[in-house]
């Protein structure tokens, strides 16, 4: 575009908004000098912009209200997550006793389906209980009967693997309903407060699967079936870390029951 090209309306807007290329500035100015109507238009636009800024710019200088501070927003975000989680978990609890979970888990021989069904249930449970600040678990890690109790309920010898290599410490566990029988949930917490759960249920299958990845929003889960137990490791959707955790769990069960294979 050359200096003497006709002035477009877009250029007039760009002039007002300070977006006009420098080499067109002189042409626009001389155009306005000889076109009073155009000049009035441009002046009106300028005045509008000034009014708009005058009316609202001070808002940006106001102190930020408490509820809009990032640290409080982070809490609220988890609050919303929790509402969704509760709905999901209720669906799980109802469905778990009446049908969908039962159907999937009783699909004998289909370990993959068993693992994925448990993964969905585990994600729902993870959402619900990870958001619990005061009562995330029923039985604390320190209580000796934790493993005995959950193993008896689930009907398989369970372990609470040492996840210290991933910086995770066992908080404790709780019992969940499942169509094929009770399901155990172990909750771990990291130094930063992040929580990871291990969910275990009888698989009613002697087959096995590889690690299956499942993701639901911000939560990721790795599920597998091995030695008659379905496992799900769920946590913040960071696949590599969950994979390392899953390997630790897998290894713990391997070494505890060498006769299983």
């Amino acid at each position: 575009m050359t200096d003497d090209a006709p002035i477009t309306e877009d250029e007039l807007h760009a002039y007002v908004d300070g977006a006009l290329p420098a080499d067109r500035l002189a042409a626009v100015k001389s155009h306005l000098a000889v076109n009073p109507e155009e000049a009035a238009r441009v002046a009106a636009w300028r005045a509008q912009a000034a009014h708009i800024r005058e009316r609202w710019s001070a808002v940006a200088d106001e102190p930020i209200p408490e509820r809009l501070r990032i640290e409080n927003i982070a809490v609220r975000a988890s609050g919303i997550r929790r509402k969704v989680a509760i709905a999901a978990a209720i669906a799980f609890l109802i469905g778990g006793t009446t049908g969908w979970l039962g159907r999937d888990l009783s699909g004998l021989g289909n370990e993959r389906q068993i693992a994925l069904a448990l993964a969905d249930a585990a994600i729902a449970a993870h959402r619900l209980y990870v958001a619990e600040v005061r009562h995330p678990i029923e039985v604390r890690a320190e209580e000796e009967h934790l493993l005995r109790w959950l193993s008896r309920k689930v009907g398989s010898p369970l372990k609470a693997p040492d996840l210290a290599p991933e910086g995770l410490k066992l908080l404790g566990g709780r019992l969940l309903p499942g169509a094929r029988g009770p399901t155990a949930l172990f909750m771990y917490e990291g130094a930063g407060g992040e929580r990871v759960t291990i969910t275990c249920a009888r698989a009613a299958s002697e087959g096995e699967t590889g690690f299956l990845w499942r993701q639901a929003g911000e939560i990721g889960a790795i599920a597998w079936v091995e030695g008659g137990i379905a496992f799900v490791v769920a946590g913040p959707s960071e696949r590599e870390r969950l994979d390392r955790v899953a390997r630790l769990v897998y290894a713990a069960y391997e070494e505890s029951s060498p006769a299983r294979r």
Partner: protein
Amino acid sequence: MDALTFAMEPDMTTVRRGLEPLIPALRRFARALARNSEAADDLVQDTLVRALRAEHLFHGGDLRTWLFTILLNLDRNRRRGLSRRPVLAVIEDIDPEAAPASDGSGRDIERGLALLPAEQREVLLLVTLEGLSYREAAEIQGVPIGTVMSRLSRARAALRAHLEGELPQLRRVQ
């Protein structure tokens, strides 16, 4: 609790850090859009919540543009919600503390903006109040630049007609 939720998404602090300095501009923009300061801050809060929940979806690019996009989408939902329950809509929904008492131009610009179609009001505010480029406005609205230019043109013409028709003393400012 703070520490807990922060640490739940350990790899996402970049977005979080980038959000903080943008909050004043988001509040300013939301106030001009929603007019009512409570509704405006609700909008900002929902925007931040949405951004934090979706931060894994943000892969570089301009954080400000992304946030304004979220805010405008939420505002559209909000207005849709309002229009579904007209009985509850407040007629004079302007926060009193912010209107300049001097010549009433603050309120007139508000009324003028309120009369514009939403997409024109959005463009005008993005460009004049937030100083965004036409390209950024186009990206935020998800339209070509040509559409932004025609919305801007129509917004300015309508606003001029409104202000000059109803408030001749505004010419004084020019």
